[in-house]
């Protein structure tokens, strides 16, 4: 019941908000905020309950023995951090779109609907439910990009939908093969032995097709920058913050357990792609002239760490994958939030036109510098633990290839510092004189993220601890435990 | 064998007419040729066995009836086109793409 509520609160909230939007447009955002906060509080309570309980899992939904329902839910160390992240970013997204004038009812309803769908992806314990939620995520995102996006939104919305749909369509075939050859549709019951050995490699790659696009793994990433640049702020926050995590989650939840030996065999490929992603993403980010595009490519680089960690597959590395995912969820969300707030004021994201904002918008720029430093993996901030551990563990498996990753680390510094240099530092520009600095609502959105980034950096075990048992079990499967 | 060849030939010939004649009237006529050939085959197959013969004739009658109905509809269409002065197949190539 609890878990069902977890999925239904934002859903019901969406309906409520939409109705409110028809009659009292002014109060919509408040309603949305209230719903999101309730969800967050509820999630936190749940998280504490589950995390302190051993084993750290909880099942829910219509689980009566006789029922043939697809509505089976389950939370474990793998899903929990991501669910919390989702609820958190849900609140942030609502705050980020506080000033949406255009059809606010629909906008907030879509946001909450998106949140519900993503939460359900992480909650689902039934293949069909999982896939349904997975695709359902596309719908609100499609409308968010298309309805509230920027100039190129027509194309971006379609591209986002079709590109990711292409991946998940193949994934569907993989899931169908799993479900209908084994006759087992409960995700938690999908153990490594269950799938016919002759099918495993095929299924593995079919599933990976879906996840690789979502992560995204280079070279299946080109939908991301476009979607990000065109999406409204809240959309970008959810997209970078949680949607990309669905890919990593899928790899850990399905690809590894179902076809361990295939995963083991494919590990070098993934490591290579991960490393390529780290370096390539950073290199391309370095060349961007659009601030939002730059952040988007930095996301690609960071998700490269996730892929690399998963390929490494040791318990610590898998925990690191989760650390990087959560950390990136916080950091990129903060960065996109800031970029959005900046765009509201300057109506440009061009690095060439920005500059000197430390003088113009001191508070904003300070937080921006902080976020950029976090994004380059500064120790003491969220990015560091996961990337460090990935690095350490990766060396054990991939040896001196990690030199390339080290290069990526340097380049991460390069693009982050470039962003700081072009945006925050430099002489104050008369063009931007007299812009108003962040107000309370905007601070309320940014500051919690900043604080959490510090917390994650200092006390990563809050996440890795929850992940611990799952990580050990998984890496035992892929034979690196 | 002969009948088989004959009816198949008739069908083929009718088809050729349908595909090549320009006057819609001729096209419809060619259709009748095809249909005739086909029902001839039906009859020829049904004829031998005493049991099948009756059923065959029955079916043939039904086919005949249906064919007539079709012909009626076809000619109705034809007339409705002729009224608009479109009597040849190249007059009706408007709907495309």
């Amino acid at each position: 019941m609890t878990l069902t509520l977890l999925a239904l609160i934002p859903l019901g909230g969406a309906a409520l908000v939409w109705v409110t939007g028809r009659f009292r447009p002014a109060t919509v955002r408040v309603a949305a905020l209230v719903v999101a906060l309730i969800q967050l509080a509820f999630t936190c309570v749940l998280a504490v309950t589950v995390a302190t309980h051993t084993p750290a899992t909880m099942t829910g939904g219509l689980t009566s023995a006789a029922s043939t329902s697809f509505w089976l839910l389950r939370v474990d160390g793998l899903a929990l951090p991501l669910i919390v992240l989702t609820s958190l970013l849900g609140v942030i997204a609502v705050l980020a779109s506080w000033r949406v004038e255009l059809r606010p009812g629909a906008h907030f309803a879509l946001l909450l609907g998106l949140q519900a769908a993503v939460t359900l992806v992480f909650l689902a314990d039934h293949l069909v439910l999982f896939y349904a939620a997975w695709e359902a995520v596309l719908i609100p995102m499609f409308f968010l990009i298309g309805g509230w996006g920027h100039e190129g939104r027509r194309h971006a919305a379609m591209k986002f939908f079709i590109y990711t749909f292409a991946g998940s369509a193949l994934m569907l075939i993989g899931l169908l093969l799993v479900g209908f050859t084994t006759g087992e549709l409960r995700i938690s019951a999908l153990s490594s032995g269950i799938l016919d050995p002759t099918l495993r490699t095929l299924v593995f790659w079919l599933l990976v097709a879906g996840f690789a696009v979502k992560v995204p793994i280079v070279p299946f990433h080109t939908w991301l920058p476009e979607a990000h640049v065109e999406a409204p702020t809240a959309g970008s926050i959810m997209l970078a913050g949680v949607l990309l995590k669905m890919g990593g989650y899928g790899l850990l939840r399905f690809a590894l357990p179902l076809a361990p030996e295939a995963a083991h065999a494919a590990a070098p490929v993934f490591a290579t792609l991960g490393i390529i992603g780290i370096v390539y993403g950073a290199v391309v980010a370095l060349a961007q002239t659009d601030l939002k595009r730059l952040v988007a490519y930095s996301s690609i680089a960071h998700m490269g760490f996730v892929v690399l960690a998963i390929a490494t597959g040791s318990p610590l590395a898998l925990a690191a994958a989760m650390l990087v995912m959560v950390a990136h969820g916080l950091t990129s969300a903060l960065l996109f939030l800031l970029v959005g707030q900046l765009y509201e004021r300057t109506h440009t994201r061009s690095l060439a036109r920005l500059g000197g904002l430390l003088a113009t918008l001191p508070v904003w720029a300070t937080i921006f510098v902080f976020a950029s430093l976090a994004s380059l993996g500064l120790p003491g901030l969220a990015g560091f633990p996961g990337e460090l551990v990935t690095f350490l563990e990766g060396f054990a498996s991939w040896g001196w290839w990690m030199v390339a990753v080290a290069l990526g680390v340097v380049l991460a510094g390069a693009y982050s510092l470039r962003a700081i240099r072009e945006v925050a530092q430099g002489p104050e520009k008369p063009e931007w004189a007299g812009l108003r600095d962040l107000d309370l609502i905007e601070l309320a959105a940014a500051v919690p993220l900043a604080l959490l980034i510090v917390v994650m950096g200092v006390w990563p075990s809050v996440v890795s601890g929850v992940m611990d048992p799952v990580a050990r079990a998984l890496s035992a499967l892929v034979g690196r435990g | 064998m002969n009948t088989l060849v004959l009816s198949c030939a008739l069908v083929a010939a009718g088809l050729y007419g349908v595909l090549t004649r320009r006057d819609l009237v001729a096209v419809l006529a060619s259709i009748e040729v095809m249909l005739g050939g086909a029902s001839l085959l039906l009859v020829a197959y049904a004829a031998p066995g005493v049991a099948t013969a009756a059923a065959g004739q029955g079916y043939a009658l039904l086919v005949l009836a249906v064919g007539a109905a079709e012909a009626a509809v076809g000619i109705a269409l034809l007339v409705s086109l002729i009224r608009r002065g479109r009597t040849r197949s190249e007059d009706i190539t408007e709907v495309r793409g």
Partner: protein
Amino acid sequence: MSVLHEMPYLAVLVPLALAVVLAAGVRFWGNAAAWIALLGPLTGLAVGIASIGGGTAGTFTWIRVGQTVLRLGYDANALTVVMLLVVGVVASCVMVFSIGYMHGEKGYVRYYALLSLFTAAMAALVLAADLVSLFVGWELVGACSFLLIGFWYAKPSAAEAARKAFMVTRIGDAAMLLGMAVLWNATGTLELSAVLGKAATLAPGVATAAAICVLLGAVGKSAQFPLHIWLPDAMEGPTPVSALIHAATMVAAGVFLIARVWPLFEVAPAARGLALTLGTITALGAATVALAQRDIKKVLAWSTISQLGFMFAALGVGAWPVAIFHLVTHAAFKALLFLSAGSVIHGSGTQDLAEMGGLAKKMPLTAACWIAGVVSLAGIPPAAGFFSKDEVVASVLHAAPWAGVALFAASALTAAYAARATRLAFFGEPRGAKPAHESPWTMIAPLALLAVGALGLGFAGAPLAALLGHEAEPLSVPIAATAVSLALVGAFLGWRSARPEASADPRFAALTRAAYSGWGVDAFADRFVVRPATALARMADAMGDRLAIDGLAEGVATMASRVGGLLAEIQSGDGQWYAALMATGVVVLAAAAVWLVR
């Protein structure tokens, strides 16, 4: 006191807390900020004193998955104590000095917040009992240096310098990450006690690799050739910052690091050799460059690089206690020199030697302190610099004569540029545009304190060595004599060759220009690293991402709709063609059927 002894990490937490407090009230504290911030280094100092003769160590669990654990640990051992004292003293002096120097600056509180943060990070670095927390401190001091160099963010040159400093050091940091990975892979832990304990048992290849990676990290941080290019630019920051970060503490962290992990280098001769070579090259090369500088801070910056070179050379021959000794004395006299320079700049409003001159009359106290520093730098007895540098040269000469000779030359050059700068700044005719004035007591007092250190610390050599568990080599008279005489000669030449006008001696114009530009290392890096990288990035974006990868994705879509258009052409509107099409279909299907059941 016992609290400080039991909880040395207070040296980190207190300044950190202060930094947060200051940052929180950035609009509110005003001039009180300095005194609040001062508590930080003083705590560090207190912890250092409290931990003399054995401090406490401990760990916190950071990440635990299964059996594998990453711990954050602290350990107030002798070396740490020394560094804590250095950091505490210098930081306190700088903070006090800044009261006057930064007075009325926009961002006064921010300045002190960053200084406190730096103090905390530095303390964390030196207190670290494992490579993780060491690296944390290591990166954070780098970040603070970035933020402080870019303190005047509106100034493009400052912003560029800050970025450059962070980027160049980050190259070293990446290498250091690799070293950590190697060690983690080889020993399964990053706790220094354990790692160093196992150091002897490491495969030579592994040990060398790890040592070299760590060394590269140190090279980046301590501005050794070829990663030294960031330090001169870093002078864009406020002068007190240069004194604290870019002379006394952070740049010395490399030396500290190598000394801290010495057992590793013990088993990695190749790494030692590399350290010696780089150190020597740097010591000599930087000294020549310093000779040609016109900006007083640049002179000091290159001098710092050169002196750090001395330390690396000492490390290279295994004399790490000596290196630490020189680190301490250098911290004293170089901080002194920087602060004096700061005072000069404050007083005369310029930092171009060509526009100074004759300041000794206007700013006698500053001049006195400066001269004390210069004497110590040049290695004239009985100043502190003499003893430490003598020990360095002696030990190097003993192990690697060629390097020793080079260092002799370097020390001579040191004396030369010191003398030159002194003459240009304080003697001869006043060339300054506006009248200079002496600085307030808040600036002079720290100078005095440091001057005492610069002159007197020479006698701290023996106790220091004892503290570090070694015995200091006795002063070898011949070497000392050679060094001193060389220094005097150098000083004399430097004094004579000092010419105020911008253009150097025409006979050596080209040479001077080359030296002035740091022998073109910077230009080289720019042409062969920075620009290619940028070009590559642009190409990867344009050709790779937009054209190739995205082009492929988009191309598939366009192709599909093109083909769709062609297929729609099939619907030509000719009914007979449709009939033909379908008849063909029937024929094909029938044929297929016959074939399938054949």
